[in-house]
């Protein structure tokens, strides 16, 4: 019974972790950018979804849609205002681009965080659920929303997989992550690939943000922790590896759930952090990472 409970509970939270970290790894894979404004993009989507879904006569569905649109817009703004200028800057030495992208996205994230806190206050809110009620799975009472979240997460993961592996545009994304110069030689404009990547990133982050907001609640104060969790999962799975990210999300999700159930809820985050340190010491490239 307890085992089943842990299995079901961990499954949904892990799916959400996977989705939340997916965009982060995608952008790193395609354009080498570690977007430290990631948590801010998630929370922006969730906040907009909450605001529209609750305040207007629009309803939960329209709220969710606006949240995803907000995610895409925030993503493009992040790229256009912060990342691209740094990548194009002649004044920044090549070897220090990484630090500048990190610092720049960090500052941008801080701006979004304070801005969101100013507009919506830092008190957490919950995005309206698309469905309510509970379902009994083999004796475990499970909120329908939790099931929906797991389903949407896996659908999104599946669609992304199809997009990357089964469409020409997706092949370009993959190729850009492996060898950008090779892709230019094949006549593909990297700028367009990057725009596509940031667009997809926006959609995924938007969906993840809205789902997170409806399951766990959202607040501008969660931004650093969300960025941190996504970063940890992505590094654990191997930077740029989508499959690795999903596996790592499940590892982290289940370790946390197990700790919360079997040891103590207040120690929930600790074992995963220790695992991360161990993995980084002994296998720095992550579970599925390439060196």
């Amino acid at each position, binding site marked *: 019974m307890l085992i089943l409970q842990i299995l079901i509970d961990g499954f949904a939270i892990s799916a959400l972790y996977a989705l939340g970290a997916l965009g982060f790894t995608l952008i790193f894979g395609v354009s080498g950018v570690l977007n430290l404004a990631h948590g801010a993009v998630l929370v922006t989507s969730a906040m907009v979804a909450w605001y529209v879904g609750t305040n207007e006569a629009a309803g939960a569905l329209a709220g969710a849609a606006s949240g995803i649109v907000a995610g895409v817009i925030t993503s493009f703004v992040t790229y256009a205002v912060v990342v691209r200028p740094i990548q194009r800057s002649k004044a920044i030495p090549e070897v*220090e681009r990484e630090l*500048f992208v990190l610092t720049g996205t960090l500052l*941008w994230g*801080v701006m979004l965080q304070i801005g969101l806190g100013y507009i919506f206050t830092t008190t957490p809110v919950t995005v309206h659920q698309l469905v309510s009620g509970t379902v009994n799975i083999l004796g475990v009472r499970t909120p329908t929303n939790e099931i929906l979240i797991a389903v949407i997460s896996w659908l999104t993961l599946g669609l992304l997989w199809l997009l990357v592996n089964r469409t020409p545009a997706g092949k370009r994304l993959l190729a850009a992550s492996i060898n950008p110069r090779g892709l230019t030689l094949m006549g593909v404009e990297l700028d367009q690939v990057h725009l596509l990547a940031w667009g997809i990133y926006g959609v995924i982050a938007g969906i993840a943000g809205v789902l997170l907001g409806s399951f766990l609640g959202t607040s501008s104060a969660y931004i650093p922790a969300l960025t941190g969790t996504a*970063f940890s999962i992505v*590094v654990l799975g191997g*930077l740029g590896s989508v499959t690795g990210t999903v596996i790592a999300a499940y590892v982290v999700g289940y370790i946390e759930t197990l700790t919360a159930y079997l040891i103590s809820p207040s120690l929930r985050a600790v074992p995963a952090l220790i695992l*991360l340190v161990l993995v*980084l010491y002994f296998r*720095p490239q992550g579970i599925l990472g390439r060196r």
Partner: protein
Amino acid sequence: MKNQRIIVAIVLLALAAAPWIGISDYIIGVLTMICFYGVFAMSWDLLFGYAGEVNFGPSFLIGLGAYGAGLADADLGLPLPLCVALGTLAAVLGGLLLAIPALRLRGPYFGLITLVAVLLLQDAIVIFAGTTGGEIGLSVPDILSVNATVNFYYALGLLVIAGTVLLTVANSSFGLILQAAGQDAIEAQALGFNVVKYKIAAFVLSAFFSGLAGAMLVFYLGTASVDAMVDIAVGIQVIIAAVLGGRRTIIGPVLGAAFLIGAGEILRPLGQVSGVVVAAVALGTILIFPNGFLGLLRGRHSA
């Protein structure tokens, strides 16, 4: 040469005289915080600018210094100087702990380790709330002084000492070897230098001043708290100060700290929005002038 030294002396004297020329205690308080953050940012710059290590967790070292000293005072009741020494020692040990992965890992991986170090320290503080005061913070019975001017002199003294030591080191042969190790470790080894030794030394030095400043900050604020000394946001402030002021200059980060703290205070009437403005100015600065304030001053001069 002589003239230049005189200018340095005049600027320092001007700062030292600040409490006596009618500046309010409040501004003295702001200057005091600038001094502490200046030391944090300088220490970070030694690691990043010279040793080439991007430490995302300066607040790990600061926090170890702060809580080391705070616990020694609150729980053991040791005399204040001993507490500061113990805090500094804790930070130095933490620096060694960070140095081990730094020598094995590159780029984002090392960055992540430093972030995780901060998170683990934060968790430890919360888990052992009985001893550490948890998220509420740890109040210490002793303080440096109730007098703002005296506190300011402690902080200014720390800034001058740390600045002198770090600048001397950065411009010494050791600094040159460290830069070589940071830029091209293979070349540095091929020239006969034990890169590991220099990097460890840099970590120790950076941790020493971060920890010392963190420990003293506890006795200035009268409390050690996660959000003032350990939180990732504190580390972010430090990094932004260093990049903003001009990385790889030791002095520049102090300017960056002065800007961040000063602008934050001036814009305080704006409330929450002040943070957005400061972050936007910082973002604009690093986009347009990647070499920071000091680079800007230098550039204008040479142009």
